[in-house]
């Protein structure tokens, strides 16, 4: 393949690289941010990145199962967000705190 095709022909690799980049951004956010809500949002971003690669694989391998897996991931992500935010709201209501460092002290 000549090198200019990288920009004009979109292959599976393009979607996978994009998905990996989104996943990395999400991971960096999870590791570096302090606000626990933002950390949860970054986890959602990582799940979305995985969904993108599922759909790309589904398209380029001609099988529909990837889309169904995305459907399931979507459900689990939403459930996770619901429980996580319920916990965060619970803690915030009592301690007025969303810093992830503070959550280390919640023991016993």
């Amino acid at each position, binding site marked *: 393949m000549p090198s200019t095709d990288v*920009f*004009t022909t979109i*292959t*599976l*690799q*393009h979607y996978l690289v*994009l998905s990996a980049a*989104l*996943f*990395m*951004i*999400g*991971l*960096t956010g999870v*590791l*570096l*941010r*302090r*606000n626990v*809500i*933002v950390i*949860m*949002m*970054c986890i*959602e971003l990582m799940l*979305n990145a995985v*969904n*993108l690669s599922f*759909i790309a694989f*589904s*398209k*380029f*391998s*001609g*099988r*529909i*199962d990837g889309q*169904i897996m*995305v*459907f*399931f991931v*979507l*459900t689990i*992500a*939403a*459930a996770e*967000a*619901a*429980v996580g*935010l*319920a916990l965060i*709201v*619970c803690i*915030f209501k*009592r*301690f*007025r705190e*969303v810093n*992830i460092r503070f959550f280390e002290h919640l023991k*016993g």
Partner: protein
Amino acid sequence: MTADAFIFWFLSLITLGSALSVMLLANPVYSALSLVMTMVGISALFVTLGAYFIAGVQLIVYAGAVMVLFVMVLMLFDLRAELQAFSRGQISGALKLATVGALAGLIGGALLLSAGNVAEPSMAEAAKLPPDASKALGIVLFTRHIFGFEALGVLLLVIAIGTVALARAKGGTHAKH
């Protein structure tokens, strides 16, 4: 072909830009709104991949429900820009970034090594998928994946009961401040 390429590059620019601003913006409300933008962008990418139904579901569930919950909680807490959005500690920060870099390297390497194996059959295989896959999706979901479907129903029920219990939890081991 060039139109497809243009749409892909445009959408990936939007998605990556808004994903970066999710991570970088100090105000969590702006982060959440950027994440909405990212999800709309990913939904558009699903459309370019022919997954119309999943794109709609992505809009309804992620952009229309999950992120509304996030934005609503942030507005309930009324969190403005934080003084310090990122965690302290230069050594730990450098370690974390190095971890991310290592993982990025691993994935990039894996993609490069597998490039020859995956890319070849793509176009022929892609033609197999019907242009509007909603019906095919339903048929596969309700034959091959029917137990996963029922299990998710139970999971959603458990979560619905659990979150209500959590949201009204009173008492506990810590005294009120």
